[in-house]
């Protein structure tokens, strides 16, 4: 049964806001391979190139033939729960605060045994299960045994809900609601059960099609916010910073010019001011309060989402200056992630390909509709990921970039405009 998440009670002002505790976060370098895959929503294990044996825990040499030729490969996670245990005592502060905690011993069909958290919909052992790799509050991969059938969500389990950033009953700031993407995101968050959505509006004198209709959402509250104006960001953070559970940075400036197509730096500066410095301003004003509220009961701060672009991975010359600004934002988001991770606040980056909006007008399909991008964003919050590449183009670029960044760079440079 899906857990019904209710609107949290109002905070009791005489009680101290607790500080966040995290599950053990230390991993070996090789074990971070699990996290790297989980960050994209995949369960991968090492496989031996020589004898084909699947490995667990992550290691330097094959557990069967001692070969060093191990590579990470996606797993289906099917297996059997052999036994389970419910912990009632723990030294780790994180578990101590959350006892009792159910764990299980799983035999994967691929031939390895793992210890995993057990979703509360999983019955008593022995039974068939499916292992998922999810990110815990420390940002590291943890394995979760899910029922083989029925596909319940992680957030249906009250303990494992913390591995997600489910927007249900949350208070969310969408930094720019005027763009097509911003509007779609606000609507999708409302449909996903957000309690309150602050919708940022810059330059109120410029009307934006569809924006006024957003005001009719019962959860929506339009607030002035211009991420190019430090004062505006500071004032909004002063007003609502202590209430925001999830910040969704949809602020975006895209003027679609290559280096040679426009003289001067004005337009590129504007892109940088919104896409890079905008994120910096938001981070400086909102991140400290998010960290301070990371363990604020059920109404705690849990996530920060950036809508970046797959153009951040490798410069796309027809959108060269935009690509550069998104690459800068991507880099800064890694700084933000490192800053928020010790508090257990997750930073999710979305890297969409061309979006079906004004500034990608001349891009050939397939283009991601704003609604599809918004759906991917909500899904990333409901799930347990850090990096999302929504749509076919983004998936294609990601695969090519993983295979050979140089080849991708050269291919993208062959545009004929």
């Amino acid at each position, binding site marked *: 049964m899906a857990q019904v998440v209710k609107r949290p009670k109002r905070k009791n002002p005489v009680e101290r806001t607790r500080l966040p505790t995290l599950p053990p976060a230390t991993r070996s370098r090789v074990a971070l391979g699990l996290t790297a895959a989980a960050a994209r929503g995949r369960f991968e294990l090492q496989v031996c190139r020589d004898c084909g044996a699947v490995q667990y825990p992550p290691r330097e040499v094959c557990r069967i033939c001692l070969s060093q030729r191990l590579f990470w490969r996606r797993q289906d996670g099917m297996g059997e729960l052999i036994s389970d245990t419910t912990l009632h005592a723990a030294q780790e502060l994180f578990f101590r605060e959350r006892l009792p905690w159910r764990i299980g011993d799983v035999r994967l069909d691929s031939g390895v045994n793992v210890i995993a958290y057990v979703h509360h919909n999983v019955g008593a052992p022995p039974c068939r299960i499916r292992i998922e790799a999810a990110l815990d509050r420390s940002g590291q991969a943890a394995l979760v045994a899910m029922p083989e059938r029925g596909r319940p969500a992680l957030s249906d389990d009250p303990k494992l809900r913390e591995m997600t950033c489910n927007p249900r009953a949350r208070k969310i700031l969408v930094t720019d609601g005027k763009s097509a993407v911003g509007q779609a995101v606000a609507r999708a968050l409302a449909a996903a059960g957000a309690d309150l959505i602050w919708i940022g509006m810059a330059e*109120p*004198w*410029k009307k934006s099609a569809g924006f006024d209709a957003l005001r009719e959402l019962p959860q929506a509250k339009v607030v002035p916010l211009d991420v190019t*104006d*430090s*004062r*505006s960001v500071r004032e909004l953070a002063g007003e609502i910073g202590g209430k925001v559970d999830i910040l969704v940075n949809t602020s975006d400036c895209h*003027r679609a010019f290559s280096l040679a197509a426009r003289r001067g730096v*004005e*337009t590129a500066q504007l892109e940088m001011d919104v896409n890079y410095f905008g994120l910096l301003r938001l981070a400086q004003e909102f991140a400290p309060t998010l960290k301070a509220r990371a363990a604020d009961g059920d109404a705690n701060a849990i996530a920060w989402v950036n809508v970046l672009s797959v153009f951040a991975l490798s410069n796309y010359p027809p959108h060269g200056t935009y690509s550069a600004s998104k690459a800068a934002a991507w880099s800064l988001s890694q700084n933000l992630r490192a800053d928020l991770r010790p508090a257990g606040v997750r930073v999710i980056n979305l890297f969409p390909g061309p979006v079906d909006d004004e500034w990608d007008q001349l891009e050939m399909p397939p283009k991601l509709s704003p609604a599809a991008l918004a759906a991917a964003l909500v899904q990333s919050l409901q799930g347990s990921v850090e990096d999302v590449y929504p749509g076919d183009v983004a998936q294609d670029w990601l695969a090519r970039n993983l295979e050979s960044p140089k080849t991708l760079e050269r291919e993208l440079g062959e545009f004929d405009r």
Partner: protein
Amino acid sequence: MKTTKTKLTRRKSAAKANVRTPAAPTRGDLGALLVSGNFRLVDLTQTLSPDFPTIVLPPEFGQCRPFRMEEVSRYDERGPGWYWNNVSFGEHSGTHFDAPIHWISGRDLPNNSVDTLPIAHFIAPACVIDCSAQAKADADFLLTAALVKRWEQRHSRIPAGAWVLMRTDWSKRNDPVAYQNLDDTGQHTPGPDPDCVRFLVNERDVLGFGTETIGTDAGQAAHFAPPYPCHYYMHGAGKYGLQCLCNLDLLPATGALIVAAPLKILQGSGSPLRVFAIVPAE
């Protein structure tokens, strides 16, 4: 328009009875006036603030950067004993001055940028034409040469080298949305019609034209012939513009001296500035 004319005529008769139209003090009188203390100063400047709107152009054009302010230090680790900011803005943001070089028609004139224009022009008399009632009734109100001539009948002939300031009380619109007054056909703000500008330039040899709105031209002036006539004719003749003025309602129709000295920006096309009026006591 008919209503407007009627109103103005009615006022004219009132004016005949009551309104004095003192001449602005000459340059020679100025020293004596300042020493006498027999004057008041009126600040005609809007506060430079990030919230103040700038001109709206289609997004594919280059844009005027709005005023922005980043704190350098505030008695803290970035500068323990002092507070200061770095500011950035377009030349045409806030209450600002337009130099002839701003427009293509004035590009080849001598001394056409803010760093080279004659400093003698920094202080000049002002003729204030009250169009506030008409602008209140019609956001697209246009000042015509005929209305200017009627103003002259009521007050005095506009002297050569004077600022003509179009009072609309538009600066009292504190809500930036109402101030911009945009709809899907563009901006709706008052300004002069082409014939009026030609009259002021050719027959009155004014120093420049000043408004309370974002442009010296009307909001719909892109559709006039020529487009943006106030910019085109004024700057083509070496005249200036003042925009986003306020407190014009505190000025007499004639008699005030305007102090408007733009920043000395190399090859600058204009600049935000502090504009104020010296108004001799009656």
